[in-house]
């Protein structure tokens, strides 16, 4: 089984075999990250450019580390520090980057579809690091990797994703990936946060968090994205915290082996209480650790390479 695609733009339409190949490969890279020297020479001579047109800590650093751990040369560009400020178009920016011989472009952009637009116009592999409210495939993959590490398999798992589903690319990637790997997904949110046509995604929806949490194996809490809210989605953060926040009382009613996840960054005290976020069932920091291994796997599998006779007996 090979990953026979140039780009990773989303988990929608990705096959079970492809997802499992990435997750299996990530296991090997997790072992690499635990070594005394957590670095392999695999991608020496390759160049990766990380183009982040939105703020990011975890994802950007995670990609940078993944590239460095694979011995690729890596450069990061942010919107504020780029010629975008001087009026250069996105396409002109990446064409110039390609002229400098990049092999991978990791792109985060506020416009849904921006990575797809670039992928069809570049020879380099494009990896979507989050585009608008569309997808964030590597976050979905690392979430599934973390669940699989804990449960062994995702088949039959009941995953509840709670919060601002409407604006969440993490939720969308998780829905596509989790359904492909056999998990059932319940989206729980105030009705203003449930996107129209959500039923077509093959998920259950619920507007009562306490009902949604019954029998959950995983609770994935989403961030309230204040920066994307130009409408009147919530009466108040206080009300949201009371009705949809994962607080101590709700966490206490969960199954003993239920995982609590959050893609970060967290609004402590709004969507999740600090005691829950830092509690024994929380794997929020494991998600971050696993992110590097998963991104190494994605970059490795997209990088090509042929087996010649040199090492084959």
């Amino acid at each position, binding site marked *: *089984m090979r990953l026979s695609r140039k780009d990773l733009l989303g988990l929608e339409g990705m096959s079970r075999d492809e997802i499992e190949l990435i997750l299996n490969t990530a*296991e090997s890279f997790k*072992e690499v990250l635990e070594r005394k020297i957590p670095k392999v*020479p*695999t991608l020496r001579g390759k160049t990766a450019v990380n183009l982040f047109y939105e703020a990011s800590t975890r994802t950007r650093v995670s990609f940078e580390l993944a590239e460095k751990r694979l011995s690729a040369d890596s450069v990061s560009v942010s919107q504020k520090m780029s010629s975008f400020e001087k009026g250069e178009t996105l396409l002109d920016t990446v064409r110039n980057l390609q002229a400098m011989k990049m092999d991978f472009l990791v792109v985060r952009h506020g416009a849904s579809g921006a990575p797809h637009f670039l992928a069809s116009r570049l020879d380099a592999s494009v990896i979507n690091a989050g585009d608008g409210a569309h997808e964030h495939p590597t976050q979905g993959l690392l979430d599934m990797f973390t669940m699989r590490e804990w449960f062994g398999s995702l088949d039959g798992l009941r995953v509840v994703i709670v919060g601002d589903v409407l604006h969440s690319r993490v939720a969308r990637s998780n829905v596509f990936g989790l359904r492909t790997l056999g998990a059932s997904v319940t989206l729980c949110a105030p009705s203003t946060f449930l996107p129209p046509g959500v039923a077509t995604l093959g998920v259950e929806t619920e507007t009562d968090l306490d009902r949604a949490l019954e029998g959950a194996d995983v609770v994935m809490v989403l961030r309230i994205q204040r920066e994307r809210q130009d409408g009147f989605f919530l009466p108040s953060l206080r009300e949201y915290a009371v009705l949809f926040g994962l607080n101590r009382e709700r966490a206490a009613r969960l199954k003993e082996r239920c995982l609590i996840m959050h893609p970060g960054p967290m609004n402590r005290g709004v969507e999740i209480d600090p005691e829950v976020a830092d509690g024994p069932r929380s794997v929020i920091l494991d998600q971050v650790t696993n992110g590097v291994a998963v991104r190494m796997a994605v970059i490795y599998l997209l990088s090509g*390479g*042929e087996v010649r006779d*040199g*090492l084959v007996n």
Partner: protein
Amino acid sequence: MTERTVLPKREMQWAITRLAHEILEKNRGAEDLAVVGVRTRGAHLAARLVEEIAKIAGGEVPLGIVDITLYRDDLQAIGPQPVIRGTDIPFDVEEKVIVLVDDVLYTGRTVRAAIDEIIDFGRPKRIWLTVLVDRQGHRELPISPDFVGEAVVTTENEQVVVHVSEEDGEDAVKVREKKT
């Protein structure tokens, strides 16, 4: 396609037993020894070598496996990536005498990759190279084995095939013409 058997099952076992004796003699016992096999067939041979060492010297020496995929020097061209099956060295390599085991020594590139990978785990006291078959005359790097099961003379259009029962259902070393 012509094929000849250079080591049938029984002789293959004798070779492994002899290698275990030679290693113990050179190390003056099993102290500080650890065995690391190169995936795939080298790993099976390494496990057998550990068993033989245990029979002769008593006590298990640590056993590890290296998957050299990420250390290959031929991954730069575009095409499908080899699947990684994972490295597992469940002991500290510092100050150990590492016996690196592979099935066939040919160009030396696999061994170079394996040595690089082991050194990323720490600084062993020394690394000895043990191979079941040494294809002499084809080295592309200055690498020489310390312990050899069988040295064979082959041409470029021949291939040495090591079969181990764990993978192939039989034990044997064969030389055959490469498919053209």
